[in-house]
């Protein structure tokens, strides 16, 4: 019953989306206020209906309703409640429902908080957003319906993939989707502005919160995924340049570029066409990501949902939206004339350089991801593009970006002078070089990666500190002024510093990781990087839906015990799948990472131990970056509804410059 209700709500939401796509658009064109006003209630209704459908599916999972095909395939009565709920999006159909729920949520946000938007623009934004919604509703209803029933329901389900039964991964998809789908909002704003025939500073300000929010969510989502991979995979890798990972990384890079170029639109009325193009492409990459993950084109044998029908449908959605938007973009090139005048040395130029580096690095990831497909189709070569390529081809752009970032972020708008900036940054540069040189001198290998990474990190963190300090002006009272700086200034400094911290972590981990593989008997000890690890015991334990082999280790340093570690090897009988649960001893400067393996024929256990320098810096930096974004978002000058509360509404003539 609840299921049918959900199914029905989903169909109604689809119909609402179609109405919302058509009526306000016509209304905005004909200047009929009544028709335009349909958009807001429709957006709310669409969200509510989708939420009902989602709740119905969640209910089916919570109550283990095995008459639903999806529940049977992905759940089990013994599964802990948390994973029954997260199991809703741990599969293709459910995750698409979550995706479309977020599409309608963002549409609702414009309807609820978009009072400061001109009515015609708001109607058009909501209409475009509803078109996206309608496309994905159709995709769900026609190719991936989560509400399909089973003819004869089984007694129990086949369980969720055990690897997904983990808090890190359970919440990774919702964040990623919030990010992906948030970019649909910037896309809608871009297309609506093109239809409207008006791209100006105000537009830059309106899209800012949505771009920023998407970027924050993507940052958190990617961070969670990589953290999960780090502790769950059993060898402490944190990034694999897998096509599916790249699918989430490309929108992140473009969103970062868009974030910066929208500032130029907002402050200086320049880079308009480029920013609009980025807004369109960013959502394009989101959909490419969905396509890569779900069509199985790049993954041939194993994929999330290998189904050519779905792949073709998604490709069609992608093609229609991209071709449509880009055609509109070409047709409206004339409305995006730049206004601002600025010198070669200026904040504007620095942000252009930022955009080039981010866009080109995204392009490199894209080409690398797609190359195997292209090479096979065009050149008839079956080949692989793996991590070594990306490390070699992508890293230089990030190094360049890190080098110019502290200087660029301190440059003045319009015309900047290098001398005062360089004077302020000289101490930081000297410090950074010293740190890099120290690392170079102390390391045993000859890889430049570690020293360069630490140099860049110090340069970025120090640069961010100098940047925010220099905002406090001169004379006394600088400290108190520091606390009163706007959120956006702090956000900028934190995000840039966070990038430095993450870079330090990545470089140190790749350059100075130590590994030890051996067979250990109970009572044996091993030495790694000044730490001593003793295997005390190996025992068996029963979990709620798995059995586990647990090892007890004691970690000590300089003869003093600093902790115990319990790596596990689990076996999930229903899914017939083993998982490793590594044990970590976290520290500020290093992680010790232990994995227990199989019993050996002649007694003892295979044990793998790692020393991971600065491991936590990778995710610490990610969190700080996201925090910086959040601070920037909280800046009251940029609140979504800021314009609505203060001052008179824009005059009618200003809003309605017809382009038709």
């Amino acid at each position: 019953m609840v299921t049918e209700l959900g199914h029905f709500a989903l169909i109604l939401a689809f119909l609402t989306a179609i109405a919302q796509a058509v009526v306000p658009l016509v209304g905005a064109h004909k200047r009929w206020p009544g028709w335009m006003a349909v958009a807001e209630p429709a957006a709310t209704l669409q969200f509510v209906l989708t939420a009902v459908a989602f709740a119905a599916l969640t209910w089916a999972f919570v109550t283990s309703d095995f008459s639903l095909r999806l529940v049977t395939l992905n759940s089990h009565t013994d599964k802990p409640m948390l994973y029954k709920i997260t199991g809703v999006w741990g599969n293709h159909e459910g995750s698409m429902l979550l995706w479309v729920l977020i599409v309608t949520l963002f549409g609702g946000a414009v309807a609820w908080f978009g009072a400061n938007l001109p009515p015609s623009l708001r109607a058009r934004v909501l209409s475009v957003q509803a078109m996206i919604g309608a496309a994905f509703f159709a995709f769900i209803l026609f190719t991936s319906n989560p509400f399909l029933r089973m003819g004869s329901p089984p007694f129990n389900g086949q369980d969720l993939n055990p690897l997904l039964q983990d808090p890190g991964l359970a919440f990774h998809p919702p964040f990623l989707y919030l990010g992906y789908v948030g970019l649909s909002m910037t896309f809608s704003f871009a297309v609506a502005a093109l239809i409207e025939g008006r791209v100006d500073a105000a537009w830059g300000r309106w899209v800012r919160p949505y771009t920023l929010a998407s970027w924050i969510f993507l940052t958190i989502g990617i961070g969670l995924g990589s953290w999960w991979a780090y502790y769950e995979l059993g060898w402490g890798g944190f990034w694999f340049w897998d096509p599916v990972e790249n699918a989430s990384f490309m929108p992140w890079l473009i969103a970062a570029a868009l974030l910066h170029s929208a500032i130029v639109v907002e402050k200086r009325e320049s880079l308009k066409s480029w920013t609009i193009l980025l807004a369109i492409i960013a959502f394009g990459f989101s959909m490419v990501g969905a396509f890569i993950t779900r069509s199985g084109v790049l993954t041939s044998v194993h994929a999330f949902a290998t189904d050519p029908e779905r792949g073709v449908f998604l490709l069609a959605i992608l093609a229609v939206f991209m071709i449509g938007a880009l055609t509109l973009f070409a047709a409206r090139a004339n409305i995006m004339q730049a206004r601002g005048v600025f010198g070669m040395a200026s904040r504007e130029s620095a942000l252009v350089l930022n955009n080039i580096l981010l866009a080109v690095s995204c392009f490199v990831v894209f080409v690398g991801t797609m190359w195997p497909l292209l090479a096979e189709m065009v050149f008839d070569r079956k080949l692989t593009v793996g991590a070594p390529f990306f490390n070699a081809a992508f890293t230089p752009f990030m190094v360049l970006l890190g080098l110019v970032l502290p200087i660029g972020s301190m440059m003045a708008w319009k015309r900047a002078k290098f001398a005062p900036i360089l004077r302020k940054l000289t101490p930081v540069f000297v410090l950074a070089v010293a740190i890099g040189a120290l690392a170079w001198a102390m390391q045993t290998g000859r890889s430049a990666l570690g020293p360069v990474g630490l140099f860049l990190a110090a340069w970025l963190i120090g640069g961010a500190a100098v940047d925010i300090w220099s905002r406090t002006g001169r004379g006394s009272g600088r400290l108190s002024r520091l606390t009163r700086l706007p959120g956006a200034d702090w956000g900028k400094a934190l995000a840039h510093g966070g990038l430095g911290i993450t870079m330090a972590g990545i470089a140190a981990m790749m350059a100075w990781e130590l590994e030890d593989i051996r067979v250990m008997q109970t009572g044996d000890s091993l030495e790694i990087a000044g730490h001593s690890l003793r295997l005390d015991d190996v025992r068996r334990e029963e979990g709620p839906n798995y059995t586990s082999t647990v090892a007890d280790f004691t970690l000590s340093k300089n003869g003093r015990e600093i902790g115990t570690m319990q790596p596990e090897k689990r076996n999930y009988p229903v899914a017939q799948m083993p998982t490793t649960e590594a044990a970590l001893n976290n520290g500020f400067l290093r992680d010790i990472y232990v994995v227990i393996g199989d019993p050996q024929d002649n007694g003892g256990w295979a044990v793998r131990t790692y020393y991971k320098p600065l491991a936590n810096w990778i995710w610490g930096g990610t969190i700080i970056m996201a925090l910086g974004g959040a601070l920037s978002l909280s800046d009251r000058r940029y609140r979504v509804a800021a314009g609505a509360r203060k001052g008179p509404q824009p005059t009618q003539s200003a809003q309605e410059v017809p382009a038709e």
Partner: protein
Amino acid sequence: MKHLVLFLCLLATPVLAVQPDEVLDDPALEARARDISEGLRCLVCRNESIDESNADLARDMRLLVRERLQEGDSDAEVVAFITDRYGEYVLLNPTTGGSNLLLWLAGPAMLGAGLLVAGLYLRGRANAPEEDVTRLSEAEEHRLRDILKD
């Protein structure tokens, strides 16, 4: 779920990649073996090197690499030995030969093009007549003030 696929090759196999019994006694030789294995793809997995993979095939390939090294092959010879048998598909780092040149040059070429276009654009902006700014209409000025004031 994005790593889900990585794990399908873990199915019903031991959970450690390099096993203790595979490790060579000579640390220098072992280090070379690890370096080489990190660049070779496990054929039955997705985007995993044989060094990371738990599949049986990956183990066979790791042992093969070590065998060749012990016979005195150079690193390049070992890689050539493997690619002769499994094709260039096993190379995680694509060669720079032939059409792959496009792949390797795509980034630098795009950077060059981007810098060129941006340079022209920025020069245009630097030399653009200042009057552009005053061309805002009355209404636009008003609106801009409204927005910036906030």
